[in-house]
């Protein structure tokens, strides 16, 4: 009998996490909706039809229509693209930059490490949304600038995380061994350090996906993110806020979509952490 590969082992453990599996299914569903939005949507998400203004949910419009008669279901589907892409973009940006800084700080050590970590302290001092708002405001309101702003407040988390991992790994036998046989720094980083920081990064990233989706929607809600007529969920809630008592569906469906998407990522994050973090494994 061959020993199971780490991947198989991981999957075997992950399968036992029922809630995480539910989360995974939800996320996959959202990704499918995002990818196949053009096929799934019965209407053009930007297509206006004044006679259908504020139509209630039903056969014609599954999730109803907004003030301009735009189909809310179609907008939600396209909105899934925006939210998921936002999450992926921010985390790639912040994750890569943060990991690079953390890796560098941890590996270089000394005053370099010290000063880089003080820089992250500075970013941690700000309540994230206030800083993101100030940055987005300074750059001018647009989805792209909102993503930059959220990335700027997110990267220090990854820098800290990776640095912590590197500090531990640096002293481990296999790194010491590699160094003793004369491996170059870059080789050690690429071969040994980076792959071993991946699992905590993955856990962090899946939690942050939810956080980023909420943050971008929050920025859009107060006007610093996506601009109309973009079917971004935060914008949809903002546009529907005046109708919340009279036409609940304008805000309810984007909010519930966001709830499911974010909860999905959080559940997967929980599951991943339980499986990958040996300290918490029972």
């Amino acid at each position, binding site marked *: 009998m061959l020993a199971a590969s780490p991947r198989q082992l991981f999957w075997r453990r992950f399968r036992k996490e029922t809630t995480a599996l539910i989360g995974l299914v939800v996320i996959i569903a959202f990704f499918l909706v995002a990818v196949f939005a053009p096929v799934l949507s019965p209407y053009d998400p930007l297509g206006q039809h004044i006679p259908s203004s504020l139509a209630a949910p039903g056969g014609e419009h599954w999730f109803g229509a907004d003030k*301009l008669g735009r189909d809310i279901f179609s907008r939600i589907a396209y909105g899934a693209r925006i939210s998921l892409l936002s999450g992926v973009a921010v985390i790639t940006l912040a994750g890569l930059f943060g990991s690079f800084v953390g890796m560098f700080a941890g590996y270089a050590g000394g005053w370099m490490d010290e000063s880089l970590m003080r820089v992250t302290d500075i970013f941690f001092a700000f309540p994230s949304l206030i800083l993101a708002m100030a940055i987005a405001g300074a750059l001018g309101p*647009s989805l792209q600038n909102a993503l930059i702003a959220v990335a700027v407040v997110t990267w220090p988390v990854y820098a800290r995380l990776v640095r912590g991992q590197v500090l531990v790994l640096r002293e481990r036998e296999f790194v010491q061994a590699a160094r003793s046989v004369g491996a170059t720094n870059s080789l050690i980083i690429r071969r040994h350090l980076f792959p071993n920081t991946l699992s905590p990064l993955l856990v962090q990233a899946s939690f942050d996906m939810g956080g980023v989706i909420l943050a971008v929607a929050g920025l859009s809600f107060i006007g610093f993110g996506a601009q*109309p007529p973009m079917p971004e969920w935060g914008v949809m809630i903002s*546009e529907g806020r*005046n109708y919340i*008592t*009279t*036409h609940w569906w304008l805000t309810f469906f984007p909010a519930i979509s966001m709830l499911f998407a974010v909860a999905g990522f959080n559940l997967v994050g929980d599951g991943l952490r339980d499986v990958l973090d040996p300290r918490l494994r029972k």
Partner: protein
Amino acid sequence: MKTFRCLTAPATRWLGLFVLLSLLLSACAAPAAAPTSGDQPAAPTAGEQAGAPAVGGEVSREDTLVFAADQTDIITLDPAVAYEFGGILPAGNMYETLVSFNPGDPGVLVPVLATSWDVADDGDMWKLTFNLDPNAKFASGNPVTAEDVAFSWGRAIDINKSPAFLLIDVCQIAKENVTAVDAATLELKLPKTVSPQVCLAVLTFTTAAVVEKAALEPNMGSDMGESWLNDHSAGSGPYVLNKWDRSVNVTLDVNPTYWGGTVPAMKRVIIQNTPELANLQAAIETGDADIAQDLGSEQAAALEGNPDLTLVRGLSTLLVYVGMNATKAPLDNPDVREAIRYAINYDDIITLLGGNAELVQEIIPIGFLGHTGNNPFTQDIAKAKELLAKAGVAEGTEINFIVPTATAPGGVEWSTVAAKIQSDVAQIGLTLNIQQLQQSELLNIYRAQGGELVMINWGPDFPDPDGNVTPFANYDAKSLAFRNDWNDPKAIEMSKQAAIELDPAKRTELYAELVDYVMHNGPYIMLYQPTRIFGVRNNVEGFMYDPNDTPTTSFWLISKK
């Protein structure tokens, strides 16, 4: 857990920390000293002390009027500086002008602080003489003198904030041409390039309101008393300032010794800042508010038939429009501007507004002299495309479109109207990139000629067609024509001519010609003239919305049953 490893700390940093710590501590402790309690009088001043009425104290709910409105735009309560609806409403109820328009009786000037006035031809100038009412007195008990008037106008000119152009440019008032002949007589000289009628209309605006010199002079500070007037009032109007709780409300108390007839019924008026439309609706439904200003069309529809309140609709004098920068490609081509005008479905916009607007495609609103009632544009995609092709504009050309945040006059979101226009214009192959900006920020860009397409509204500062025509047509007035970089000699000349024409029939004719010229050559897409919707609880009597008057709502006319 976060750890800080900074080990050394030079003495200077300690000093810094100490200061910052005390900063925070003082931030928590300092307010104790500020007089914010409603039980205290609004800090009587040298001038006010004598017969100063007791302001503040408890006022019963029956004697209190709660007026809910979006007051986000409020910056100041100083009448010389206020140029926002949010500030003009309270300022207009605390301060008085020499003349005014009678609420509900448009176009007729009536005496306020001046009992009579006279316009005379004084050679190369007009000479206006105002006789002040000898009974007029400030809330402090001191009489209103010509000296106070000259001081107030001079102050507004010196302070030179947003509304000062009304006195400086529209009326061309120079400080040396305002003379207090004696306590009850004021003389004002105007150049012949100004119509005295237009200037009299300007003088009804809060910028020309009279503040008490004796009360303000000791408190001028470094900003000519502007910040002092944000926490105190020094007027002769029916109400005095109790307090302005920034971003929450403005509380006005009755001036118990008001000189101008009967003392108002409402002992206290609270203008409650209520920016969310849904909350505005709830406030009037629950009775938390007695009057709700500017309900949205959806809120109005929901409140229709509510037995506790009445919806009062009044056509405003505002015009909602899109400005097109006349020097930025492709908008520099008049055919492109005309094409965009033909691309828009105006009726759909009125439908979106739930009918709470009139279709107006000219620069003079309904109710003003010179309004023609011509609405030549209806959506005609073929014609629009033809015009675009003639101009040689490529399919897919992108144009930036900046629009304000929040709700547009008429009661739907600005972004909704913008998205509607965007989708209409897309049909002729132009791509509009919408960017939403807070109104003040949008105005900054617009004033610096930085916009391409800009959607916003315009309201005349005084009820005369010149209040619209000069801004819209005269580039040199540095107003709307300037903002859209439309420097058209013909329009400028015509607007100047019409402004000083004294014969109404002739004037109407001139305006008709100009309106038509601007309609097709100008840089504007005129969209609609909105209706403002007020929710009024049934126990409130005497409420009137008069778009031509300053203030638009006169609290002293209101009572409760």
